[in-house]
């Protein structure tokens, strides 16, 4: 099929960027949008031009490396779909597709479609874990966990850390991302002892990194490739207000 790709090109973090339009012919409808970018890049390299820098790794929607704004929506705005899972068959013959990087103050552009999302690692480092040393764990079945509790914890833990929630939010809030981790660990007994401290520290870190506050637009949930529920933000607020034990 024939497509036009309008892509954000920016050679470096401090350099000006602009949209460049490319025509693509003969793409197979079963191919993914990122495979179309691969194809375009092959052409650019053979023509002696710098290929379009973009990030992707697993190409099956689990690693969270891919993440671009397609047609104005993070990951293209299709339910529970990451950028790498977008098929060309979802677009019209001859359609012009605009692809640009995630934009948020906490995500500076590295090059073209690649942004720096290391702020998300710093949020996890601010308490998104259980303080446990290797080798000291008790027998796994000693502590039963109700099936539905484990399932709900997994629903929250399914976050792939792509950052779409932040890119889609008018405030660039990380509430869904932080809420997902806080919920995952607060639901399980293993995460219990640190739950209040974790929520406070992660929220403070998010403020420090320049993420905005949540004002309940819900756009984060709409673009989340794993469909993380907005309830995790309510849980985050409750955990944040909890009085620390003792």
């Amino acid at each position, binding site marked *: 099929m024939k497509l036009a790709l309008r892509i954000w090109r920016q*050679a*470096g973090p401090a350099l000006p960027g602009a949209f460049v339009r490319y025509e693509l012919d003969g793409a197979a409808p079963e*191919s993914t949008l990122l495979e179309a970018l*691969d*194809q375009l890049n*092959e052409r650019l*390299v*053979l023509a*002696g031009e*710098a*290929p379009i*820098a973009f990030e*992707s*790794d*697993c*190409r*099956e929607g*689990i*690693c*969270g*490396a891919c993440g671009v704004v397609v047609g104005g929506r993070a990951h293209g705005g299709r339910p*529970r*779909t990451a950028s790498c*899972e977008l*098929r060309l068959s979802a677009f019209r013959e001859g359609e012009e597709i605009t692809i640009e990087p995630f934009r948020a103050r906490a995500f500076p552009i*590295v*090059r073209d479609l*690649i942004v720096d*999302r*290391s702020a*998300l*690692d710093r949020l*996890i*480092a*601010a*308490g*998104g*874990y*259980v*303080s*446990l*040393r*290797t*080798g000291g*764990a008790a*027998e*796994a*079945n000693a502590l*039963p966990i*109700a*099936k539905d509790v*484990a*399932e709900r*914890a*997994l629903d929250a*833990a399914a976050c792939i*850390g792509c950052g779409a929630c932040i890119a889609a939010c008018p405030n660039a809030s990380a509430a869904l991302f932080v809420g997902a981790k806080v919920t995952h*660990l607060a639901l*399980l007994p*293993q995460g219990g002892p640190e739950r209040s401290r974790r929520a406070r520290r992660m929220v403070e870190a998010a403020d420090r990194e320049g993420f905005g506050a949540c004002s309940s637009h819900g756009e984060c949930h709409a673009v989340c490739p794993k469909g993380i529920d907005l309830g995790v933000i309510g849980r985050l607020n409750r955990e944040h207000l909890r009085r620390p034990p003792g």
Partner: protein
Amino acid sequence: MSAAAIQPSSPARSRDRELEPHLPQSSTLPGAWRERQAGFTLATRARRRQRRVIVVGSGLAGAAAAATLSELGFQVSCLCIQDSPRRAHSVAAQGGINASKNYQHDGDSVQRLFLDTLRGGDYRSREPNVYRLAELSLAIIDQCVAQGVPFAREYGGQLENRSFGGALVSRTFYARGVTGQQLLLGAYQALLKEVDQGGVQLLPRREMLELIVEDGRARGVIARHLPTGALEAHLGDAVVLASGGYASVFHQSTNAQSSNATAVVRAYEQGAAFANPCFVQFHPSCLPPHAPEQGKLILMSEALRNDGRVWVPRSPGDRRAPESIPEAERDYYLERMYPRYGNLAPRDLASRAAKGRCDAGHGVGPDGRGVYLDLAEALAREGAPRLVERYANLFELYQRATGTDPLRAPMIIYPAAHYSMGGLWVDYDLMSNLPGLFVIGEANFSDHGANRLGASALLQGLADGYFIVPQTASSYAAGGTFAPLAPASASVRSALARAEQRTRRLLGAGGQHTARQFHAQLGRLLWSGCGLSRNRDTLQRTALAVAELRARFWRELRVTAGAAELNQELERAGRVADYLLLAELMCLDALRREESAGCHFREEYQTAEGEARRRDEEFAHVAAWFYGGEAEPPRLAIEPLQFRHVTPSERSYR
């Protein structure tokens, strides 16, 4: 390489002194690892704080090792090729992790997991290593649960299990179809906990381009900082390579875009032995490629074979829709060929059988490269909700990729390159023949022999990372004396110069073909010549064709833009250059191993039923290769495998 160089030579009979496996002295397998640990050198925490360990890779093995070494007090630098450790390719593992907890009370034990793994690998791995793996499986589940990994649970709150190939018991722990992601997040969080505590320096977007060897010991790496192209030296007292496998050499594989072989090839060039390079696993249930240029193939977990039945039409060329083919005209070939294990036959057998059926004209799908994986019977037996609960994200993944709902029509699957059992040679302590260079996870060759069982990769990565290498590397680093290595020393400067020179060579080739074109061509050569089945003739021709392609690569490669910037085309070219070198070695190893074992099916060596025929008297050994430089062929050394506790038999799943 000349044609003479690829003639197989007869294997040497004596153990190479460079390959001392340092197996435990203990006469029994249980307790051997405990006994080994009792002999390790310890050091005060203050002394450990003065030592630095460089960990290359942040997947299950690397993140677990970096976190645990830091907990022990070491300073750790952890290099990660992606922008975050949470994206390492372990994240894509779906089905589960094996552990011999025997929660199902179905006859499992450490001994049983040991036997299944040893036999699954067709007796091409070491008894003590595999036994240790089985023993550590117990502590790994405890560790992961304590980290908050949300494994599947039964209604009573106990951990749930399912079955995987090559086992008759249910010992696989899982979290829907995202077990790898959940275990990786556990290890990632442990790693970031140590970043928070100040013990780990996290170095994302770094690709290792050289190994620094000083006075015969591994002391650091040269890495490219991908956003700027700057070359950096990271120096320490020991190096742990956890850089993953090399199945991406086949171009079309289940491996991620950035999974590559450069770190292990650099170590090989610096003197580390490469063991059993021809042992690469093809996963039987992948989605067939929709275009020849498509590199990354999508995997469907082996877990689906718990409930799915594999079949093809009985008559060749039958193009009817699956639902119009009556039961009597279907060939459930795995159940027919392997009645005891049925659809849960191990991967090597299931992949070979699928290819066999398709080559005989029974294949389905657009180009006849596919077999059905059919859930209809399980659907009728258990209903859709139960199946969705078990496999929800796999169904979604399949539907998004193909537009077909697997609960309405059977899935179409085909084998694809997936996992490398071969890798850098290591001793029982997971140290390579280069002192100070430890190799863990898929990057080493240690535990899976000639075929890995499903749900054992996560197990090995975590065993190596949490429990083995922190002990062994700790003993090494605590025990030795290490002169400080100055950034301006000769070994660092020469490693830097080698990396710079390679980059210049890649940029300067000035040809007309992209790295991806060479990679795709290499993949086609290997798939047909060194793939699911091999013979002397095709291997010899493939080895020559690969050598020729490699020469062309250096003449005709085109890379645009420069070295001092983010340049993904340059990154790709460097990786393809290393695939070409490794592919030659794979062909050479496959040619020399004149037997069939596990994934390595030499057509000349098969039983009357068409199964792999091992030749234990000649090949019950590890083949380890030493780099000979550009001019000389690699030199072979062997490590004989000793079976003291198990008598290798013909591996039968019939």
